[in-house]
């Protein structure tokens, strides 16, 4: 797709064939003149930076010549801000890493290629719980200490679709222990997340909130038809606490009316008691929730039948005729119909198919087991309450019930983004070998990687593009067998060496994953960077760390230029710092080794000048010979070195240099005079008679040394 400019300055995407599937987004830029050129590059995160250049104009006052516009791609998840996504990304690192290490240790232990293991789901469940704890929305202000009797709906935190989707997958794929009471888990799930569906359709939660807001304006609550309607709705999805609490708001409980409406109150209370005694097939209820829980099926059946017979008995009781409040009578009997599982009542009470679905589990088919029968029931509910719109959670739920892993993958990838899919594949593969094969199989159409790896790599790329999260990308990249390491190397090379902290973090990551060759290259780059920016000490340090002797040699030559000028003055002191840095001789210092020896020579020479000790002079000669022998000593230093040591060569008491040593120095002198003939030779700033006086001193010394030997 190449951009094309149109006369009025608007940019229209131009494409050859597929014109029908194009979406055109206008870009506002305020440039007065027509656009001549345009450049597009990635900006931070998901943003594109578009630079627009106007046609050059003769008149400089015709407005701006260029403009840069940032285009944010994709609206992102409106529920979760960028900063919150980062919080989730940080928090999910530890659970993810733990699960991966468990997987690898398990597969090592069992020596089988597949990590599928009998109690593997327990590890995944732990992982899933850790992740769930991250996904909670912002905590709402804590509820008042004195409970408001009119407050029906309570919320502890703002629910999010992300958390709802995660929990839904955990319920179906991971938690094997609660497979037996899967329907009840769906009841709990809907109780937590029903409010999320309010955005696309009417919900029971929405009805409850509306009613609660109107509560202060209602004089006689039981005369309001909505009171009964809302209660049967809440009862149909099993929100027993709310229904009982609402029933107790009934006017007959008021002290001044209790005597007149004794029978009516008795009926209300009887229904309330029946509701609070509803048997549930589940291990235990959330603390304080109503209903009686039964773990084993036979116990439950017994209690269920007893409970239903109590309802039927109450339904047929003669007291109803004696009750003269028609609203109460009809309302209560509606509630009984819901409890008896009257299909019609359930259908009127619920707002959309998931609510109806849950009510079926509660009152008609509490023993539904197996995904297939659950799917059939869902289809029946969809027929009864056809959805008016699509919601991302319903789409996901249908995908799960259809047992179609591909659809589930596509849904979560489209609706919840790369974080979700990279982490949720662990749930999908937890209990099903089939999904495991589907997701872990290497595919040719994906370049030989598996679906799992593909999504992890995609997520790692997102992390890598952000300054604050790039350092967690290695965790995901290293879990990718095929292409992870290659991308990790790219990532590490891409980081800036300018900032010390980033550089050290980069090197630390190399150390953790044993990527010594990369860290050595990075240190080399850092060394050259610092050197070029005038921080010679830091440059030398990093080059030494990377053991790059050839580079050290090269910079040594540059360094000696400045050393040479200050050969005999006090300012040599400033070199102390860098010489210290070079440290012991075991470290590669390249050509810089010379500085070390040069310093030693300077020191002993100073001692010779301050005192007259022959020992000091001998030491100085030793250093001199070492320097002259060493190939790293630059040629331009030879003459100044020899000139500085004239005093040693002319030592009064005895010749300090042996015959062979003197010959070595004479040879060096000879070499120098040959080098002088070459074009690029730079003459040291020494008196013109220097070479001849050195030669004379060496000759004298040679003579004395021959006599001595």
């Amino acid at each position: 797709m190449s951009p094309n400019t149109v006369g009025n300055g608007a940019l229209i995407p131009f494409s050859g064939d597929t014109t029908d599937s194009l979406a055109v987004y206008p870009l506002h830029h305020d440039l007065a003149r027509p656009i001549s050129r345009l450049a597009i590059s990635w900006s931070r995160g998901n943003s594109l930076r578009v630079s627009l250049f106007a046609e050059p104009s003769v008149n400089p006052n015709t407005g701006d010549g260029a403009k840069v516009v940032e285009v944010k791609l994709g609206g992102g998840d409106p529920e979760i801000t960028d900063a919150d996504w980062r919080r989730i990304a940080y928090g999910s690192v530890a659970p993810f890493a733990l699960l991966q290490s468990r997987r690898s240790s398990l597969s090592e232990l069992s020596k089988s290629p597949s990590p599928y293991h009998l109690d593997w789901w327990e590890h995944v469940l732990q992982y899933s719980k850790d992740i769930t704890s991250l996904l909670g929305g912002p905590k709402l202000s804590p509820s008042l200490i004195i409970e408001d009797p009119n407050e029906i709906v309570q919320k502890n935190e703002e629910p999010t679709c992300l958390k709802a989707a995660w929990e839904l997958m955990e319920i179906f794929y991971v938690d094997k222990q609660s497979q037996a009471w899967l329907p009840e888990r769906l009841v709990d799930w809907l109780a937590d997340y029903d409010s999320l569906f309010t955005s696309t359709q009417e919900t029971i939660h929405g009805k409850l909130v509306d009613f609660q807001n109107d509560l202060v304006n209602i004089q006689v609550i039981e005369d309001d038809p909505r009171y009964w309607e809302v209660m049967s709705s809440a009862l149909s999805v099993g929100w027993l606490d709310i229904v009982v609490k609402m029933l107790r708001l009934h006017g007959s409980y008021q002290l001044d009316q209790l005597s007149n409406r004794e029978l009516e109150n008795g009926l209300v209370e009887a229904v309330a008691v029946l509701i609070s005694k509803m048997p549930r097939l589940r291990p235990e209820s959330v603390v304080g929730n109503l209903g009686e829980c039964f773990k084993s099926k036979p116990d439950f059946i017994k209690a269920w039948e007893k409970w239903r017979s109590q309802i039927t008995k109450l339904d047929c009781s003669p007291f109803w005729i004696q009750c003269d409040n028609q609203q109460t009578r009809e309302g209560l009997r509606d509630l009984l119909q819901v409890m008896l599982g009257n299909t019609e009542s359930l259908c009127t009470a619920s707002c959309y198919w998931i609510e109806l679905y849950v009510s079926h589990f509660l009152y008609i088919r509490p023993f539904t087991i197996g995904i297939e029968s659950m799917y059939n029931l869902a289809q029946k509910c969809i027929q009864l309450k056809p959805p008016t719109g699509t919601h991302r959670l319903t789409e996901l739920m249908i995908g799960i019930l259809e047992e179609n892993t591909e659809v589930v993958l596509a849904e979560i990838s489209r609706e919840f983004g790369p974080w979700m899919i990279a982490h949720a594949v662990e749930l999908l593969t937890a209990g099903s070998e089939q999904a495991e094969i589907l997701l872990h199989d290497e595919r040719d159409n994906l370049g030989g990687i598996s679906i799992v790896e593909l999504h992890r790599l995609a997520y790692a790329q997102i992390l890598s593009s952000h300054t604050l999260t790039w350092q967690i990308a290695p965790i995901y990249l290293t879990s990718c067998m095929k292409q992870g390491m290659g991308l990790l190397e790219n990532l590490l090379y891409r980081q800036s060496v300018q900032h010390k902290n980033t550089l050290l973090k980069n090197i630390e990551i190399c150390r953790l994953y044993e990527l010594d060759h990369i860290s050595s290259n990075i240190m080399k780059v850092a060394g050259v960077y610092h050197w070029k920016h005038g921080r010679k000490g830091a440059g030398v340090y990093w080059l030494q760390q990377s053991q790059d002797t050839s580079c050290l040699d090269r910079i040594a030559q540059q360094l000696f230029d400045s050393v040479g000028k200050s050969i005999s003055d006090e300012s040599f002191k400033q070199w102390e710092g860098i010489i210290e840095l070079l440290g012991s001789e075991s470290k590669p210092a390249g050509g810089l080794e010379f500085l070390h020896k040069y310093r030693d020579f300077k020191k002993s020479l100073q001692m010779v000048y301050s005192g007259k000790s022959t020992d000091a002079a001998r030491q100085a000669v030793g250093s001199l010979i070492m320097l002259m022998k060493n190939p790293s000593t630059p040629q331009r230093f030879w003459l100044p070195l020899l000139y500085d040591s004239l005093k040693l060569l002319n030592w009064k008491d005895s010749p300090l240099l042996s015959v062979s040593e003197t010959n070595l120095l004479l040879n060096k002198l000879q070499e120098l005079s040959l080098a002088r003939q070459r074009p690029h030779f730079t003459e040291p700033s020494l008196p013109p008679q220097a070479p001849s006086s050195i030669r004379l001193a060496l000759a004298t010394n040679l003579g004395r040394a021959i006599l001595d030997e």
Partner: protein
Amino acid sequence: MAVTANSETSQIHRFPQYKYIDAVRWLPVLSAFNRFAVLATFDYDSDLSSIEIHSFKPNPISFEFQSSWNSPSRISSLKASQFLQKTVIAASTSSGSLHFLFADSSDATLESEVSVPEDELHSVSESSIDLMDGGVECVTVGDDGRVNLVTVGNSNLNYRRLFDSGGLVSYTAVKWASPVEFATGGYGFGLHWWDQRKPGGPVSQFKGNWDKNLTSGIVHSIDIHPSRKHTCLAGGSLGTVLAWDLRWQQQPIILSGTGAGDGNTAVQSISESEVWEVQYDRCIKSNTSSTRILPSMICSEDGILGVIEQGEESIELLAEPCAINSFDIDRHNPLDVICSLEWEAVAILTRQ
């Protein structure tokens, strides 16, 4: 906010900030009811750097934003001290400027600010500062090899350059030892001792006669205890924490570190990575021998906050999955430690 009971010895509270925390300090504020912390933050989404004051209340636990000051660029070094009824916060930025903020000493409201503009003190991004205890003298050192002294007056600033190595030596850490002496740290575990009475260069250099196997590194932080001014404590690369006693110059006492060669098993290492900050632990048991190095606290790149004591097992106070960039021990309540976590959060640890 999450509460984790780390064994029975301390309570940890984490406060997500949704911003990167470059540095954190307790404010030396004289208030009976409130405790204050100063944070150097960087908000990636808005590209804003600032210095924020937060108030901390232990019961019920809360860590609330009070006020902030926008900085022209990211903070690279942050220090706080008390001077003449005022709380002084000094911060150097990555663009090379230096800022002093004055806050009310009882409620920590920011009152005024004076600054040295960019390029006056340092030419590069990385610099480190130290503010004299109870004084207004601030020493700044940088990667560019410059050492400056900044004196804060009532409404003006004076500054002068003490030394310029011309980049041959880079300085990465600095700490006052006395009103006229200070120590600096740099590359190759280089430590220098300076005396303002003897200008022209460092008066003493730490010549590490390292074992041949010992790997060299960078000093990130220095601390000097007011009662033992001759000992300089330094923390840096490879989990290294060492004490340099000016009286026995050639022998560093290595308290922790992995770079100490294969044969050297006597030294344990609390961390394997960069030690970002080191401070003497203000909370000292009475039976500490006077010949030993006092216990010190460190935080590291591999997420450790711990206490090191010579000849003892080190104690891990916190082991995070992310780096701990900086920490500070409250000088009035030395049991309380605040630290900044790389994953955009602050943790406050109360030792029992």
